[in-house]
């Protein structure tokens, strides 16, 4: 267990770092995909097994695949180096990052676990689909429906945008 925790933590940090550090966009995307897979295993060990599989299927399987698809399609693997079209962006990004880190540090310091790990594990019931389904469709059904409606609207809008219109296209 301790071995897994250490290994997963190290891998998460490493892949997270690599996904920012690597210059080649395909390599970075791949590091991020690896990060998602490790994250999925962490969820599973934390008794949220359904969430773990969904993390791997949706994030590593679908979303990262689309990322890589776009990168490959646009030949955008190599970032342009040496030319900075937005020179004011660097200090601004640094400032935002600093604020973000401070906020994270504050959140970490102020956070109190709502339940001890043992108590929450009992509530999760292994985090299987059988335990999650009733919860999702009874207690949280309106949020679920709202999210579904939002995604549907987004899909319809995306399809409408790429439809060959009357003018041009």
């Amino acid at each position, binding site marked *: 267990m301790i071995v897994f925790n250490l290994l997963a933590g190290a891998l998460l940090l490493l892949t997270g770092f690599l996904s920012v550090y690597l210059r*080649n966009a*395909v*390599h970075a995307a*791949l590091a991020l*995909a690896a990060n998602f*897979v490790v994250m*999925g295993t962490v969820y599973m060990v934390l008794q949220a*097994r*359904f969430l773990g*599989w*969904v993390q*791997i*299927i949706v994030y*590593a*399987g*679908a979303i990262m*695949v*689309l990322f*890589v*698809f776009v990168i*490959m*399609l646009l030949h955008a*693997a190599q970032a342009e180096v040496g030319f900075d079209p937005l020179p004011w962006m660097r200090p601004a990004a640094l400032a935002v990052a600093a604020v973000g880190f401070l906020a994270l540090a504050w959140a970490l310091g102020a956070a109190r676990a709502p339940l001890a790990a043992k108590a929450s594990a009992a509530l999760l019931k*292994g985090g*299987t*689909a*059988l335990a999650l389904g009733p919860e999702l469709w009874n207690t949280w059904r309106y949020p679920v429906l709202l999210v579904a409606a939002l995604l549907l609207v987004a899909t319809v809008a995306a399809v409408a945008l790429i439809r060959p219109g009357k003018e041009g296209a």
Partner: protein
Amino acid sequence: MLWQLFVTAVKALVLILALLFTFAYITWIMRRGLARFQVRLGPNRVGPAGLLQPIADAVKAIFKEDLTVARADRVLYWLAPLIAFTFALAAFAVIPVGPDGWVVANLDMGVLYVFAVSELAVYGIFLAGWASGSKYPLMGGLRSIAALVGYELALGMAILPVVLMAGSLNLQDIVAWQQTHGYFILWQFPAFLVYFVASLAEMSRTPFDFAEAEQELVAGFHTEYASMKFVSFYIAELLHWITGSALIATLFLGGWAAPFGLPQIPVLWLFLKWAIFIFLVLWIWASWFRTRYDQMIRFAWGVLLPAATVWFLITAYYVAKGGAL
């Protein structure tokens, strides 16, 4: 705990050896079978009826020169066959070949595992396409991603009614449900049709083998690969065929359970049902044309997905009304 780990490791080893052996002889079945369909003889010189041909092929592949393209991305060029091979081998782990214990990992969400692994396996294909630094492989890789997004959805939608009726994501439970209530191919024939067509794309077999369409793309994503790296892709590809057929047999044809009240013999019944689908795919392979990939994507989004969704809603209504469960 340690003992359990040991047992699982031994099971996994047996499974891997069995899969690799099956792979070796599926190449023979494939070549002889395709030859029969095309009124040829096929490989028949090495050993009786060409039975030693796979060994000859293996020796030849090992001693071939292993080229690396100058413009290749070194790391990913090496990694891609490894990814494809590993995930192709791993997918079979949750498919039960007999009653309790006759499965490497009896996961409570085995269906999700198969999905996750088969999606990750596609990384091998398109990374190979990209890392080769050559245009035909790149096009093959792009096609495979575009297709993946289309057929994975249809595949998922076609599994959902089965899961809904069986009330479980565990493959052992799905087999048990079929033993008491009858095979899903009877209950869920529309879902079976969608699933079978979509899994032809998943296995990248005719009519959906456009990722390596030899007339247009030389050999698609593995054009620039030779020797054992090529063999890794070849193994991965045929393993998708092997595992996909076993999965259809498990989901829709009762899996390892014996039909008509015949004696339960582990492995045997799954093997026979699996052989039906292996042959069916080979038959389609030998007698059909390859679709254009944009047509396949339109078909996946415009026909398979809506059909599967409608059928899913019908099943959901039926189950909600208290049928079957």
